């Protein structure tokens, strides 16, 4: 009993529960049956028809969640995921289209090019903070807009597929694609991202640099006193973060529809969902994986909820944000209430 009560009082469980309850109130407010709607979310995301979609969404969400979690562990917020991802996708598309190599090598090179583009662009944001004192939060976000505009320009003019009415590049050559599992939309990209999560877990738990990162996040002045070089750490963390965001972009291009389509990478809002997942998990490696899967479930399940109950899928976005609002306020209200009532009891 005490363990259940303890779990309920943890801020994460409380926030998720609060989100679900407030979401149910929204559903009742719009005249829908909350049980039917939540049931549709679960069956639509975990059922045989939905699980493949959930896993391929998890690939993108988890990749960006890791990209944001790694700097977040040191207290740095990278809001430029969109720009880094899009540049990564564009770099991968250009490599895949124009580098005359055998298909398997072209795939590897395209992935590396995507990671390099994302890493370089994120490092630029780190340099803005290190050299010019522009806060990372702001520099990374502001840099994201010109990157998206550049990629959009390239896809609409110089690299546009001739004769197509869509703002997209030509399709990658045959075989320049990530292998998929059977006939599903889940590609080897999922494995790459899970591998990245495992590497993050290992670094966080077992290595000195992981310890330095966590220490910087907990108390950056103490960490500086203990000899952690902040500027170098910021640069390395941002480069790693951008590389992961770029990887997600490259994976997106090397999966269906095997080309760079303007807006296709950013429209689903993976950057913000990833940030939400990283925040919910407090950037802890395993928690980030779980939270990413949870939000991918919500996103995919939202679509089937929309189909079966006519509740707009935007509800799931509201749910995500409510969870984080509660968590950010560290709404340990129950704990406070318990403490206060205990004090009152003892005072009597």
């Amino acid at each position: 009993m005490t363990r259940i009560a303890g779990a309920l009082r943890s801020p994460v469980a409380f926030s998720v529960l609060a989100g679900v309850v407030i979401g149910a109130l929204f559903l009742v407010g719009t005249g829908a049956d909350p049980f039917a709607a939540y049931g549709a979310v679960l069956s639509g995301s975990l059922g045989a028809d939905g699980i493949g979609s959930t896993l391929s969404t998890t690939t993108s969400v988890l990749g960006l969640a890791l990209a944001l979690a790694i700097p977040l562990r040191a207290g740095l917020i990278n809001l430029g995921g969109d720009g880094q991802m899009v540049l990564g996708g564009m770099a991968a598309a250009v490599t895949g289209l124009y580098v005359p190599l055998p298909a398997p090598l072209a795939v590897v090179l395209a992935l590396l090019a995507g990671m390099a583009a994302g890493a370089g662009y994120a490092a630029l944001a780190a340099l803005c903070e290190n050299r010019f004192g522009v806060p990372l939060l702001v520099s990374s976000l502001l840099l994201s807009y010109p990157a998206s505009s550049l990629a959009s320009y390239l896809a609409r003019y110089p690299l546009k597929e001739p004769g197509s009415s869509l703002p997209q590049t030509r399709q990658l050559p045959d075989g320049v694609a990530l292998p998929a599992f059977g006939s599903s939309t889940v590609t080897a990209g999922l494995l790459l991202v899970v591998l990245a999560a495992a590497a993050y877990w290992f670094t966080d738990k077992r290595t000195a640099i992981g310890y330095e990162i966590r220490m910087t996040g907990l108390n950056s002045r103490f960490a500086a006193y203990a000899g952690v070089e902040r500027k170098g750490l910021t640069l390395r963390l941002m480069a790693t973060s951008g590389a992961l965001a770029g990887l997600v972009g490259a994976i997106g291009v090397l999966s269906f529809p095997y080309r760079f389509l303007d807006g296709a990478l950013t429209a689903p809002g993976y950057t913000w969902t990833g940030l939400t997942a990283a925040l919910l998990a407090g950037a802890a490696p395993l928690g980030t994986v779980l939270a990413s899967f949870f939000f991918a479930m919500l996103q995919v399940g939202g679509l089937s909820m929309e189909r079966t109950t006519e509740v707009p899928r935007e509800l799931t976005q509201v749910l995500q944000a409510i969870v984080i609002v509660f968590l950010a306020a560290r709404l340990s209200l129950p704990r406070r209430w318990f403490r206060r009532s205990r004090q009152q009891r003892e005072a009597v």
Partner: protein
Amino acid sequence: MFFDSDLLMSALRALTPILLAALGGAICERAGVFNIGLEGMMLMGCFTSVATSWFTGSPWLGVLAAALAAAAYSLILAVGAVTLRGDAVVLGVAMNLLAVGLTSFLLRTVFGVQGTFDDPSLAGLPLVGGFSPLAYVAWAAVGVAALMLSRHVWGLRLRGVGEAPEAAATLGVSPAKYQYAAVLVSGVLCGLAGAQLALGNVTLFSENMTAGRGWIAVVAVMLGRALPLGVLLAALLFGLAEAAGFRLQGLGLPQQATDAAPYVVTLGALFLTTARRRRRTRPAGAAS
């Protein structure tokens, strides 16, 4: 001629929403609350103003409702950051996300459309002397905020709360009260900014229509060092970039280049001012 009075006029029109939101951000900054939820509060203002104007037929009620709704929404930040001492950055990010989701959700449930709500009978704000009435409100607000912060006892106490909350508390000034007031004022200003965007600049609501303007406002607060006149100059810079972008688009530059212009200009200005400030604060004689 490229720089003419037309360009200045359209710059002044473009800067109104940024200026209103940035003034709100500056007041919060002065009271010691970092407010990056400006974008979300603006978006709530956009939706509320359009919905109210549509149902009542009066854009003025739309403006009023937008101010009230955004102020109510800003309470999330006030309660979360001031009372519960949560992380203001995370709260602000979450509020921006919540606003996108909530307004898209309401757009679907109230109007039954996705993407954009646009109707010829939706009443927008009239123009007075070439500007929306809210533009005059914004300019007046700069003056009022500047005078309050530098002269009036409330403004001085607000700054005291922001700079040394403990000292203010010992003098009998309640930091929480002033911080709540600052956040609520920023909510009202962001609501007006949203109404200007949705009923002044255009007459429609579309998903995520603030498109980073709230973030530009956050940057304007930094650029202007949270001083009302500084914020005005920063917003003017953004307005000029946006107006020049439109002008260049007319001259054949692709839309993508002009879309990016305001963000690049803002970032450039941020570099220059912070770099200059740093050089000035660097100890004399230090090799550079």
